[in-house]
């Protein structure tokens, strides 16, 4: 009843607005609430972040900070040899960039492959298919902190993994103290935690492929591998593109589960760019909000490029499908 009253009260106002501004004005009117929320939580913080990145000092409030132009960017980019992070003024930033790049390369490849294989298996008529779909999706529902803690407990010196190792007669290993294993663990745990989501996207894509194509291939006695490469993979293209780019963006933003699992160590071997920003901006005794803001802007630019690639790929795939 009150809603009806509100609608009746608004009706003449909306009619007047439409008369003055046309259909475009009505679209604006209905978009306004969402745009306001987007503005408050995205646009304003983004603008503030850009301003922060051009200020110096250790104070938190903008009014207490001095304008230094592109000084923070200059500090981040000052390097004698970009391949050797210790020659850079902000060596940990470049270590984090290198680590993040390596992480993305391996984790995204692994994620796409594992999700693809899982989706293909779950798309078959196997016993307990519903159960296995739930099992693979379950880690997605867990908080990343919980994921990190679970695996930390498994891999620590007195953890489950070492219990098994010692039962087999070997000496315990401090898994997370080994640079290679800690990095691999970050990749593996992140893949384990998120593959359910990507599997779901690919599964939806697989189920959308017309069955008659497979029936035709079967009648022609086409080998399974050829069916996969010539039917499944091309028709799964748009979904794969989405998975690839989403995984890529998520990979660049890796923080929570890796931070809880390894803390960035051993040394800085699993220090990723988001942890660097967090440390410099908030957590460290060597706090510098302007430097953290500049690093986050640079990371944002990388994400913009990745998003543009996603849009490009999606549009290309749409055009391909239309033909």
């Amino acid at each position, binding site marked *: 009843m009150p809603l009806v009253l509100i609608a009746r009260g608004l009706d003449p106002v909306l009619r007047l607005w439409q008369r003055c501004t046309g259909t475009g004005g009505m679209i604006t009117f209905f978009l306004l609430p969402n745009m306001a929320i987007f503005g408050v939580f995205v646009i304003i913080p983004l603008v503030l972040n850009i301003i922060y990145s051009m200020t*110096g000092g250790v104070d938190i409030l903008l009014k207490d900070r001095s304008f230094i132009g592109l000084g923070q960017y200059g500090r981040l980019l000052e390097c004698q040899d970009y391949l050797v992070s210790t020659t850079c003024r902000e060596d940990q930033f470049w270590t984090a960039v290198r680590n993040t790049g390596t992480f993305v390369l391996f984790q995204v490849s692994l994620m796409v492959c594992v999700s693809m294989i899982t989706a293909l298996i779950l798309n078959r008529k196997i016993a307990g298919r519903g159960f296995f779909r739930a099992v693979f999706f379950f880690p997605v529902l867990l908080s990343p902190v919980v994921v990190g803690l679970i695996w930390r407990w498994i891999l620590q010196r007195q953890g489950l993994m070492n219990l098994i190792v010692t039962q087999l007669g070997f000496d315990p290993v401090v898994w*997370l103290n080994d640079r290679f294993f800690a990095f691999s663990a970050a990749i593996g745990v992140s893949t384990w935690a998120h593959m359910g989501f990507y599997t779901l996207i690919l599964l939806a894509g697989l189920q959308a492929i017309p069955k008659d194509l497979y029936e035709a291939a079967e009648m022609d006695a086409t080998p399974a591998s050829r069916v996969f490469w010539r039917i499944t993979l091309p028709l799964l293209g748009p979904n794969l593109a989405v998975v690839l780019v989403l995984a890529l963006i998520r990979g660049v933003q890796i923080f929570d589960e890796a931070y809880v699992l390894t803390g960035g160590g051993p040394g800085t071997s699993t220090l990723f760019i988001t942890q660097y920003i967090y440390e410099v901006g908030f957590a460290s*005794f060597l706090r510098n909000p302007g430097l953290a803001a500049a690093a986050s802007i640079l990371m944002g630019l990388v994400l913009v490029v990745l998003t543009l690639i996603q849009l490009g790929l999606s549009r290309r795939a749409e055009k391909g499908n239309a033909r």
Partner: protein
Amino acid sequence: MKTKIWLSGIALAAMATSAFAQDATQVRIMWYSDGIEGEVIADLLDRFEQANPDIDIILDNVAYQVIQEQLPIQLASGAGPDIARVTNLKAQAEHWLDLRPYVADPAYWDANFGDRFDWMREDGSNAIPGYMTQLTLTGGFANATLFEQAGVELPAHGATWDEWAEASRKVMEDQGLPAAFAIDRSGHRVAGPAISYGAKFIGEDGKPAPMNDGAMDFFTRLTDWTAQGLMLPEVWVSAAGTTYRAAADDFINAQIPFYYSGSWQVANLSGKIGDAFDWVVVGSPCGPAGCSGMAGGAAMVAVKYTKHPEEVARVMDYLASEDIVREFSERTLFLPAHSGIVAKGGLNFQSDDPMVPPAMNAYVAASAETLPEADRMPAWVWGNTVYGAIVTRISQVMAGELTIDQAREMMDRDIADQVEAAGQ
């Protein structure tokens, strides 16, 4: 009809309650706990509220990380609680309220807490910003049972770090332990020992001095001990940046015979070890310059953005009163920072654990051995900057990412960058 009567009654009761609550002034305290002190302070504050119904105290028991990361942002924006328990005392001094005009007897505060006001107020100020809830001192704990089982004598008072490392190595080898000793991953923890080796962190001009040979001598030892498998690697190596990691659990689980931490661990160790093994406090091992630990502690400070300074001062007067400080220290096993109580002595630490009284006495004795450089550190505004640079870079050396010479250069650069940033 009955329902209506009931609802009316509930509404009236709610109105009466809210009217009553409005009469009381709310004082919000942000508090963190290392051990049981949260329960103790809650009990003490309940008693205050009963005696002072016009003040309603809200105790926000938060994680230490909130104090370190969120409180500074609240303070910078002119908000925050009325009172807070903090450890980053000096760097945030501009946000503390001067209680001098509000407390009942400023002379009492000066006489009993005045020695440490400089730790938490701006240089040159005569403000009363709060009081230390406890003094802490870094120092070592030895697992006496493991030493005994290994047939290794506990190094005597005055033993050097090298002697402790060697004795602990023998225990490690004999008992098949993963490491000989561990030190918390914290710049504060290693600063005292570094000072024992001749480190001078404070320059002539009051700004940070470059890392000297004394400091590097101890840091080189630390990295060598880690490389030799004597120092438990996962505490320092398995993290980046300034992340704090304690090694208390490894000591509690009898994985290391020697653990360097501080006096605040006594209640924790007593509660968790129980009678599983005997442990003793051994003070700080020595270097060429002395046997220094590092003093520190947490303080209750009034925040200057409070709207109720008079009520805040009444709460602070109560908490800082001799009886309450004494009871708090005795129940929490913390060293008091109240000069009067220290002078009178006779603290009756409430613990059935026979390890506790000698442990507390050992810390009191060790507090006399801190070197002047270590005594200056808590009141020095750049202390945390130096600690941050040490822990970040020395961890990288331990992980094999930097040489000790590169670490020295980078520590100096990190500290200089931070000093420069603060001046912008």
